[in-house]
Every structure is written in structure tokens, then in C-alpha cells.
């Protein structure tokens, strides 16, 4: 499936309590052609943020009182299922805090003072990462839809194909002809949009890895 060529423009959300820093970051990002939405507090951001809006986003967080409020914010983000990459900026620069932030899934931790180039690079990478994430999400989504189109019998056949059973073995188990199984398999391959069994196994494993045991239910 090919995504629409005019990709939605990326947006960087800058959250920080220092207006000067916010404004300077916005100015820098706009200079390189990235839309920037500043917020002076996280609560407003959480209220406004629309995770379903198109276009890659990333979050630049200028934290003042980091650990505690950062934790709360991350919890809030995760609680809302917002998977945007977060770049933390801090002037405190203490290692435990950086480690904790990264462990909690922050995209990066940048210590003040930083070079603008460095920040821009990391923002680009974060946007790329979000772009990838969104792409994968979209693929996953369409694949899920395709899986949903399979009939129960087709799923059972798929399960067994992935387990490595031959047509004959499957036919024996179900007490039908191996031609019937072959027909099922061909339909499954068609419905899921793959070319051969190898690809079929790949995407099924990938799908399961992404979202748990899906088709077996």
C-alpha cells in the first residue's frame, strides 16, 4: 500500500515555562521550516493534543523541576496512548534524571546549553521516528483489517500453515481434501496481499509480535 505522496507537514510541540526559551526554539524550528506550537504548560498541551491528527510530531520538553513532574507527564502521555517521541531539555544535567527519562521512553535527553544544530538534528530524527511509527501503525492497521476479513476456517488454516504443517496434514486434521486446503491457502494469500508462503509467515509473525496472539482466537 502506498501512502499519499503529499506528506502532512511535521509539527513540533515545544512545552516550557520560560517564554524566552519557547520563543527562541519556535523561531529556530520555523527557520528550518518546521511548524512549531509552543505551550507554557503540559496540561494545556494534553488538553489540545490530537493524537489522530495527520503528520509527524515530536515533543520538546523544557523541564524545570524534572523528575517528579516529568514522571507525571509521562504517565499522562502513556495513559492517553500518546506515543509521540519526547525530547527532554534540562539545565540540571544530572545523569540519574537523564537515565530515568530515557528508561521511561524519552526519545532523547539534551542538556542545556546545547547547540542549535544538535537540537535540530535530534528533532529531525524524532520526527523521522514518528513518521516511521505512524507508517508502521498504518500498515499494521491495514493488515489488521485484512486479517479481519479472513473467515474462521481460513484463520485455522493460516495458523497451521504458519506452524509449518503441510496441506496434507491440515487436510487430514480437518477431514477434508487437500485441494480444499490449498484453495483456502490461496484465498488467505490473496486476502493478506502477499505473494508466497514465506511472506505470509513473515507478516503473521510480525503481526503477532506487534499485537499479541491475534488470529488464533
Amino acid at each position, binding site marked *: 500500500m502506498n501512502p499519499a505522496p503529499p506528506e502532512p507537514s511535521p509539527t513540533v510541540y515545544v512545552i516550557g515555562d520560560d517564554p524566552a*526559551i519557547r520563543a527562541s526554539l519556535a523561531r*529556530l524550528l520555523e*527557520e528550518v521550516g518546521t511548524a512549531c506550537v509552543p505551550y507554557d504548560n*503540559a496540561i494545556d498541551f494534553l488538553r489540545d493534543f490530537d493524537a489522530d491528527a495527520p503528520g509527524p510530531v515530536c515533543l520538546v520538553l523544557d523541564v524545570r523541576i524534572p523528575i517528579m513532574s516529568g514522571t507525571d507527564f509521562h504517565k499522562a502521555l502513556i495513559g492517553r496512548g500518546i506515543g509521540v517521541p519526547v525530547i527532554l531539555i534540562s539545565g540540571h544535567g544530572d545523569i540519574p534524571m537523564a537515565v530515568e527519562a530515557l528508561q521511561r521512553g524519552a526519545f532523547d535527553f539534551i542538556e542545556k546549553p546545547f547547540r542549535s544544530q544538535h537540537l535540530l538534528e535530534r528533532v529531525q530524527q524524532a520526527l523521522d521516528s514518528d513518521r516511521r511509527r505512524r507508517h508502521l501503525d498504518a500498515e499494521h492497521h491495514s493488515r489488521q483489517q485484512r486479517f479481519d476479513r479472513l473467515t474462521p476456517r481460513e484463520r485455522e488454516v493460516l495458523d497451521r500453515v504458519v506452524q509449518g504443517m503441510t496441506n496434507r496434514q491440515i487436510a487430514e486434521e480437518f477431514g477434508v481434501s487437500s485441494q480444499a486446503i490449498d484453495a483456502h491457502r490461496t484465498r488467505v494469500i490473496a486476502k493478506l496481499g502477499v505473494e508466497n508462503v514465506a511472506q505470509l509467515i513473515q507478516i503473521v509473525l510480525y503481526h503477532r509480535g506487534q499485537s499479541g496472539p491475534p488470529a488464533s482466537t
Partner: protein
Amino acid sequence: MARHAPRDRTGPGTVDAEPVAPADGWTQHERLVTRRVRSVFLVLVLVLLAVSLYSGYRVRLIDAEIKEFSLRVVPLQQLIGQLQRSVLEQRRIVRELVGADPPAGPQREAQVVSFEEASRTTHTQLGRALQLSELAVDDSPPAHEYERVDRLLRAFGVELEAYERAAAAWTAAAPGPEVSDPGAADALEQRADALGRRVDQVRLLFEVYAKSMAQRVEQLGGNARWLVGGVATGQLMLVLLLGAYLRYSINRIHRRQRQQEQRELRQRDELAHLSRVTTAGGLVAGLAHELNQPMQAIATRADAARLSLERHAADPAASRDTRDTRDPRLAGDLDAIAAQATRAGQIISRLRSFVARREPHRQPISVNTQVHATFALLRSAGRLDGVRLSARLEPGLAPVTADPIHLQQVLMNLIQNAVDAVTAAEGPDTRDPHVRVESQKLDGGRVELRVVDNGPPMADEQVEQIFQPFFTTKGDGLGVGLAISRSLVEAIGGTLHAAANPDQGMTFTVRLPVATGYPPPSGVASGRTDEPASPPTPPTAGVWL
């Protein structure tokens, strides 16, 4: 008066002589001068004392002599004069009786009687004269004069007796002139002459003596006047001198008190400064972080501006087209850079003015402004550790006369203590650590500042202790914060008290007198106008961002 002199002198002297001399703050020179002045005073007082005592002694002597003169010399002189007269009277009667034409019969009898009377008078007078001279010989200083008089008087007495006996014998033996014995009469006459000479002698002698005595007494009287004047002058000078010394001492004590006060003031300022430096040491890390903010903004702006320029340079067409739109953005960058540089400067100068060592400068200031300034300093130093800090300030308060840095220091100490208290009470029920600063107008031209916390309350007996220097319950505390705060507040006529709140935590209350000449007619000018750049944001430290 003179008796008191030494006591008064040693009075202030003992104060100086305390063994704490090096700590009393006198310079070597001052002590030397003091010692000299004191010894000069001592010598003068002693001389005057001696003069007074000697003069007094002399005056008493003169007094005694003059009394002697009027008690002995004068009466004796009079007695001798009377004696002479009565002897002459006796002699006259005898002459008549033994004369060429002696009276007879009752006339003669009368003459004899009057002779006897004169004789009695003479004896009485002689007796008294002898008595006087005898006494004088016994206890008068110029005794030899009296001795001569006495001797003469005694000789006179002997001769008088002899004369009287002769006269009596004669009158008895010769009842009339017809039986007169010219020889006996001659002898009697000779005796009478001798007697007269004697009494003349006594009188003469004594007159000379009395005259010299009178002269002496007169001279002594002059001396005495002079001496009395001397004594009086001496005593007057003594009084003046003591007055001067007392004044000098009192001035000296005053000067010393002033110096002591100044020294204490200096010490207090130094201690306050030291404590500010310590406090600032704790703020520095946070302030360094705070400095990062404008620095970062400046760097980012500068990079953005450079990128902008590069983009325009790479695209001359765009440069022409966007000249109009490009300029405002670059100008905005430059403005922002300038503003952030100023901000960084302010952070530094806020810290610098807090720790600067300088003379206290009292001026009318708004307490609310200082509360905001302290908040800014504390908050920018990130010292609040998740404590909610809020202010409830009464607008339009009259200013107080104080050094702004000292007031900030007091607030800083109180707020820091409160923050320490509410964060130290780390327990299961420390949900909402909160410190509130309140200001309020009081009656009687005063302004009140309160720092209220919801930490653990303190027992009353502990509240008494916490203002003592070096009392602390903190591991890293010096224990001088409250002591210094109180002395700073008291130095501007205010008070600082602590009390436990009825429910929880403590309240520290500062009361300050309003600056003289306030409140102004209409309360237009409040602390708002001269507030620093940071707006009175509702403090929400601890809440996310």
C-alpha cells in the same frame, strides 16, 4: 566636698581599669591620653586639697589668737588701767591724811573709810588681773609676755600690801597731824611713789604689749581674710575641676558608648553579610541553572538569525523578495538577544546585590516589592523543592524605612526556614507542603509581614530558644538565621516573633514601623510601580512547569 573628690575620680576610673582592656576598643593613643588627663587631674586636686587644708588650719590659728586677744589682752588692759586709777586714788587719800593739813574728826574718819574702799577695789582688781595673767601664762602661746606682766603684777601686789600695811600702821599710830612723824610720812610717800611707778610700769609694759597684739591681730585679720579667700577659691576650683573631670568622663563614656554601638553595628552588618554569603552559596547552583535560560535563548536566537541570513544569501531572489519580511524577524532576534542579555545581567546583579558587602542604605521601600524580589531569588535558585509558595499581600501598603537587601535577607531566612520545616517533615501525611507570605497594614503606623508554614509546630519553650545565635536543629544549619533576622529587624525599630499555629506549623511575624511622612495623602503609590521585571505571578512551584 573635698572629701568626695577621690571617690568621684575613681568612679569612672574603675570602669577603665577592667582587665578586658584590649577588648574595650580603645586605641593605645586614647588610653595614653586618658591616663595623662587623669594624672593631671589628680595632681591638681591634691594641690588644691593641700592649700585648702593648710589655709583652713591657719585661719583656725588666727581665729584662736584673735579670740585670745579679745578674751585676755583687752580685759587685762582695762583692769590695769582701773588698777592704776584706784592706786592713784589710794595715794591721794593717804597724801591728804598725812599731808600738811590733815583732816580731823569725822572728816578723817570718812577719808579712812574711803581709803579702805579704794584698797578693796584695788585688791579685787589686782586679784582679777592676776587671775587672768596666771591663766594666760598657763595656756596662751605668747606666754613670756604674760609672765612678765604676771611677775610685775605680783611684785606690785607685794608692794601694795607693804604700802597698805605701812599706811595702816601710820594712820593707826598717828591719829592726827599733830603727832605726825615726818620721817614716817616720807617713807610712806616713797612707798607710794614706788607703788605708782610699779603700776605705771605694768601699764606701760602692757600697753606696749597690747598695741603690738592689736597690730598683730589686725595683720592676722588681713591674713585670715586672704586665707579664707584662698580656701574659698581653692574649693571653688576644686568643684569646677571635679565638674570638668566629671564632664570629661561622661563625654568619654558617651563617646565610648557611641563607638561601642558603632562597633556592634559594624559587627552585625558583617555577620549579616556573612550569613548572606552563606545563603547565596546555597543559591548559586540554582542561579547558575537560571542563567542557562537566557544564555540558551540567546544562543538559539543567534543561530536562528544566522540560518536566516544564510538562507537569504543562498537565494538572492528570495533575498530581494523577502527583504521586507526578513528584516522584522532578524530585528526580533536581535531584540530578544538584547532582552535576554539584560535578563542574565539582572540575575547576576540580583545575586551580587544580595551578597555585596556594602554600607546599609536605608530608604523608604515597599515590603511587597521585597517579597516579590525574594520570591524571584528563591524561585530562580530552584530552592523550593516542590513546596508551594504563595503570597497574600495587601496592596497599597505604606513604605517602611529599611535596607532592601536586609529585608530580603530576613524574608529569605524565614522562607528558607519554613521550606526546610515543611520538607523536613517527611512523613506519610505530608501531602501539601505549603509556605505563605502575607503582608498587612496594622494600626499605629505599622506594617506586618507573616511567614506561615504547615510544617511541624514547635513547643513553646523551643520557640524561646530558636532566636539564640547558633541554635539549630539542622545538620547543615549554622543557627544564625533567626538571630540575625531579629537584629536586622530591631535595628529599624521593628520586632520579630514566632508562634505555633493553632492547627499546624509556625508563623513568624515581622512588624515594622511605617516610614516617617507616610502614608501619603492618597494611597496611589503602592509597591506595584517599582516592582521588578518579574510579575507577581501566583507562585506554583512544584506543580508541573
